């Protein structure tokens, strides 16, 4: 198991894995809703890179969705 932070909350993953696999896990476990956009360690990750970026121990992931705004 590895420890990460997801939207400022401590979470665990089975192991280090590509972001795309982590997303599939969060869709089941966290009811992750679409559409969303992701940043890892304060860096924006485009969708085209989800398969290439790996989530490692200690990573901080922000998953943001559309919300009201002024």
């Amino acid at each position: 198991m590895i420890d990460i932070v997801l939207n400022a909350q401590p979470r665990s993953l089975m192991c280090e894995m590509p972001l795309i696999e982590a997303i599939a896990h969060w869709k089941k476990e966290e009811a992750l809703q679409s559409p969303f956009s992701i940043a890892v360690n304060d860096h924006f990750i485009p969708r085209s890179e989800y398969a290439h970026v790996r989530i490692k121990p200690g990573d901080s992931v922000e998953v943001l969705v559309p919300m009201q705004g002024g």
Partner: protein
Amino acid sequence: MTFELAGKTCKSRLFIGSALYPSPQIMCDSIQSSGSDVVTVSLRRQSPNSGGGNDFWDMIQPLNVNILPNTAGCHSVKEAVTTAQMARELFGTNWVKLEVIGDEYQLQPDPFALLEATKELIAQGFEVFPYCTDDLVLCTRLVEAGCKILMPWGAPIGTGKGLINPYALKTLRQRLPDITLVVDAGIGSPSHASQALEMGYDAVLLNTAVAQSAEPVKMALAFKHAVIAGRLAFESGIMPERDIASPSTPTIGMPFWHQS
């Protein structure tokens, strides 16, 4: 009353926010009542109670409006730039209302970080709508950095105080005649919006004034008419102000008045 905005034709000079409404349905009804086709939105962490699905986004999309994502709550260049990048992918637009806040109480833009973030985002192909103060030098620097649109405040966000420094706003209008100017923030009543349009500003952006009124849908309609009135007045040429009275009724033929 269409006008060109960043390559798009807009039918309204009223931009409206999507926050603070009593309910999602009132939000939709207010946006439609306003006639606005530019709506601001934000990005935030998913609510833990949402249970999947994005009700807000599902309600906004059918309104068929131009989405203007903001970077509200960002306090640094890094935060603002990253948020803008995420917004571009999420909303499918290169428009960004750039907010970099320097004071937590007044939500006053940090002019230095705003300028730096603007330069970075323009270099990345964004159409930046910077939320700024009414400072002429800052606005000039933003234009020099490539901004074609500026959004100076009328007053701090959510205060409803109106245009607290009309002299500064008029100066911006006179000194930056070719830039699209939008008064953003601080508008409280429709007369404030009219005032901005009468001054020659191209549009106004407001949220709290509608969402937190007693009847948001009716207030949105009031703002719609105020913006139209202000723009028509500007185009018609407002009479000059005078210090001495000048009668509007003819004096010639006045009865009981001895003319010598």
